[in-house]
């Protein structure tokens, strides 16, 4: 589903070259739930933005759903983002001027979908996250957890092949975070491929697989013993 090989991302200024990702390799299979972990500044979010075609990379190869994406133009990248990828952001990123229904509709509009199909998908997605009754509410009228659920509904409405989540519970209190995490697990059980960036060992423990990044490279989890231990602890404490 998602395969990066020897991928690099360099930010260049006149005097400095900074490697955000270096010789980066990852392979996520269809239906997997992968947690990408690592300390702040390790390159997690850069990985996610490149994976989501929000940013280009400097070297290496990236195949998404079998397509090599390095040569795609801006329009093609937009189309793939729209059709194949669903995003869930830490800050929810709902559009404040639009109500819940219209927020979920945004990606469907860009796909050129007819109104009846849009409506059906939106209501199904809102139903799935338990917010069908809040369709006419505005983001400011919802709690943080509810806003993130709307964002998940927006990501799901287009039936993407890949869900990319960036610290999806980072802005939520524990109870709300648990609810959102359970929703993601449920979506995964239904067959979705999910790549989630987090620095929270408890969340990482609930994924099928952990990929740990330090200094822009994938490393063995054992190279970060404290985090490794924290994940183990979390797994041991997990009711499942």
């Amino acid at each position: 589903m998602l395969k990066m090989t020897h991928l690099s991302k360099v930010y260049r200024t006149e005097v400095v070259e900074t490697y955000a990702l270096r010789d980066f390799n990852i392979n996520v299979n269809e239906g997997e739930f992968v947690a990408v972990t690592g300390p702040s500044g390790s390159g997690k979010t850069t990985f996610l933005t490149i994976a989501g075609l929000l940013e280009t990379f400097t070297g290496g190869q990236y195949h998404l759903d079998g397509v090599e994406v390095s040569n795609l133009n801006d329009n093609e990248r937009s189309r793939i983002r729209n059709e194949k990828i669903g995003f869930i952001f830490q800050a929810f990123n709902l559009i404040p001027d639009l109500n819940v229904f219209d927020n979920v509709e945004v990606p469907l509009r860009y796909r050129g979908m007819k109104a009846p199909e849009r409506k059906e998908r939106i209501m199904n997605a809102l139903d799935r996250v338990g917010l069908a009754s809040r369709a006419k509410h505005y983001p400011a009228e919802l709690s943080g957890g509810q806003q993130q659920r709307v964002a998940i509904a927006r990501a799901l409405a287009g039936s993407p092949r890949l869900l990319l989540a960036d610290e999806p519970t980072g802005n939520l209190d524990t109870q709300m975070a648990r609810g959102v995490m359970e929703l993601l697990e449920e979506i995964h059980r239904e067959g979705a491929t999910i790549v989630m960036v987090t620095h929270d060992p408890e969340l990482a423990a609930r994924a099928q697989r952990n990929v740990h990044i330090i200094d822009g490279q994938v490393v063995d989890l054992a190279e970060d013993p404290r985090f490794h231990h924290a994940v183990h602890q979390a797994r041991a404490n997990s009711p499942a």
Partner: protein
Amino acid sequence: MSGMFFHNLRLGATSLRRNPLLTALMIMSIGFGVAASMVTYAVFRAVSGDPIPQKSAQLFVPQIDNRGPQYNRHGEPPDALNYTDAMALMRAHKAPRQTLLFQVGLSVMPDDAQRMPFKAVGYATFSDFFNMFDVPFQYGQGWGPGQDESREPVVVISRALNQKLFGGANSVGREITMDDRHYRIVGVTENWDPKPRFFDMFSGNAYAMPAQVYIPFNYAVAQRFDTYGNNNCGSDGKRGDDWGSWLHGECVWVSAWVELDTAAQAEAYRQYLDGYAREQRAAGRFNWPPNNRLRDVAAWLDYEHAVPPESRISLSLALGFLVICLVNTIGLLLAKFMRRAPEIGVRRALGASRADIYRQFLAEAGMVGLAGGVLGLVLTGLGMFGIGLVFEPQIAQLARMDVSLVLLTLVVAIAATVLAAFYPTWRAAQVQPAWQLKSN
């Protein structure tokens, strides 16, 4: 596609409601800029239009230098002819159609003795006048060449005068009395008053009241009717004390027009004028080389400055003001659009192409333009009342708020605003979704 267009309009309306102050500033900026331009354009349009578009390239004014270089302004011959030269052109008959004219002012005596006499202003001219200038008739027609020669007291009156004297009935064949002479009416014109009155730039105000009567030139001269318009007797200003010296002196007071259908005819006529001037020189009347002109309607109006300079200046100033307003709008739109960079980042992440962003934000700008256009219409309407403060009343009254001006106001407002929005929209479309999302 159209669904997305209306969706973008709805998004635009929502966004504009969100910042009412900013929106109002933009709308006012566009509205005032467009209104200033439209008011001055209405005046400019009224005074700069082609008064006879179907024939303006075929109608020419011959000018002959009968006074010599010492009396000429910038080397140009006088704007009219004296009687001698004017009649010489008529007798030579080198153009398919030709006419002379001078202004007359006659006292009309109504049949009804209870009514007071009144002044009617018009022209003494030749029969070709009506065909050359495509004068439309309500009743009857102009007189014929025979009546030019026989100096018959016939008259063509305007629709307005016919209304005043005969209640609008067909008066052809009836008589009217002017200056104690009886004239037989042969035709009644429709309301016809080209602006500017290109055929008589010499005699009077090009935007004056319409002519009411037309009588045969030869009859008017035979009756010794003095011109009611201008004359120019050169720097010494002597016009002579008697009719004979007025008629055969060098004062200019007759406007001449010829209709020449082809460039070859125009060239031949120029050569004829030069030949005529050489003949006059050989005869000892002119002691300077030929200095003639043959201008068509457009060149004639330009030469006569038919478009008042203040009209051009005010239009330029107003367009400058519109540009300043648009620059202001660019700044306001840029501020408004860039405040929405996070939204743009999200939309791009969710699959919006740059073209989608362009469409959304240009639609929003178009709505600002439309609202600015509506405000501009209101202000243009108000401005029409204020034109008289800047321009002469005769010019100010020409400016009209018609359907074409209404449409033009809206189109200019929308087009100008969308144009102004290109840079802010381009900036909006350049927003990198990754950076916007990372910064969150």
